[in-house]
């Protein structure tokens, strides 16, 4: 699959078939996430893959932003202690950025494998961390719900790029683009 096509075609998938995802494919997704860039190469990320239906259900109950019946959830966590030790006050923001980079890799890799995915930030981090037995300094930052898509992918709506893209310097309202 062409990378640019994958970027344009990928959509958040919130409705899934019940068919399980092969373990090898889940491992490939985690590997794609792991190989994302890392600020200062600190690598404070951890990945918890959950496929046991009871635990997936429990995560869903604590995640108002999770829809449909995903068959797997990958929990992207950051080791805040490690990040803060290496990057002091920037540690928090570095870890969030690292996790975001990992998530995008994961979403594109899932799309390439025909797996639907949706990142979820609307969840209770402390409750999910406790459910998974994460140590206190390891914080679940983002969830990725996974499953083979059910029905059509969404439309993908974005504001016009002309309004948001600037060349050389910030374009003033009313001035021409070039």
């Amino acid at each position, binding site marked *: 699959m062409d990378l640019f096509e994958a970027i344009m075609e990928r959509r958040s998938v919130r409705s899934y078939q019940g068919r399980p995802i092969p373990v090898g494919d889940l491992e490939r997704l985690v590997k794609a996430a792991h190989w994302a860039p890392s600020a200062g190469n600190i690598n404070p990320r951890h990945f918890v893959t959950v496929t046991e239906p009871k635990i997936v259900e429990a995560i869903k109950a*604590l995640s108002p932003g999770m829809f449909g019946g995903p068959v797997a959830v990958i929990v992207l966590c950051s080791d805040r202690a490690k990040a803060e030790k290496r990057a002091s006050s920037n540690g928090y923001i570095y870890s969030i950025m690292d996790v975001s980079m990992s998530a995008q890799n994961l979403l594109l890799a899932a799309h390439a494998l025909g797996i639907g995915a949706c990142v979820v930030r*609307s969840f209770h981090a402390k409750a999910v961390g406790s459910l998974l037995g994460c140590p206190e300094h390891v914080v679940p930052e983002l969830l990725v719900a996974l499953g083979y898509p059910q029905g059509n992918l969404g439309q993908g*709506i974005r504001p016009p790029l002309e309004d948001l893209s600037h060349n050389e310097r910030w374009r003033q309202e009313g001035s021409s683009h070039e």
Partner: protein
Amino acid sequence: MSSADLRGEAHKLLCYMATSARNLVGEPPMYGPFRLVDASSRLIDILERQGVDDGTLTEARALIEEKKYLVMNDEDAFVEFLDDLVMLLARSLV
């Protein structure tokens, strides 16, 4: 559905509602109405599995599932859908 199953389903819905309440403190204001209609849809699911089969509720859930994601792309259309949902439910009140 056994009473243990019902309790389990209700527990999950309560977790969802409590987490929503907590998270809405810092989320976009429009997520409030979104969570409430989503909770309504989940409640209709439970009622249906409990054997409470009602045409209006099923219709309401179908409308919610069709329109709830408008909140992300078209807030005016989302508010219009909320009006339609209330009118649909109100019609069978008495």
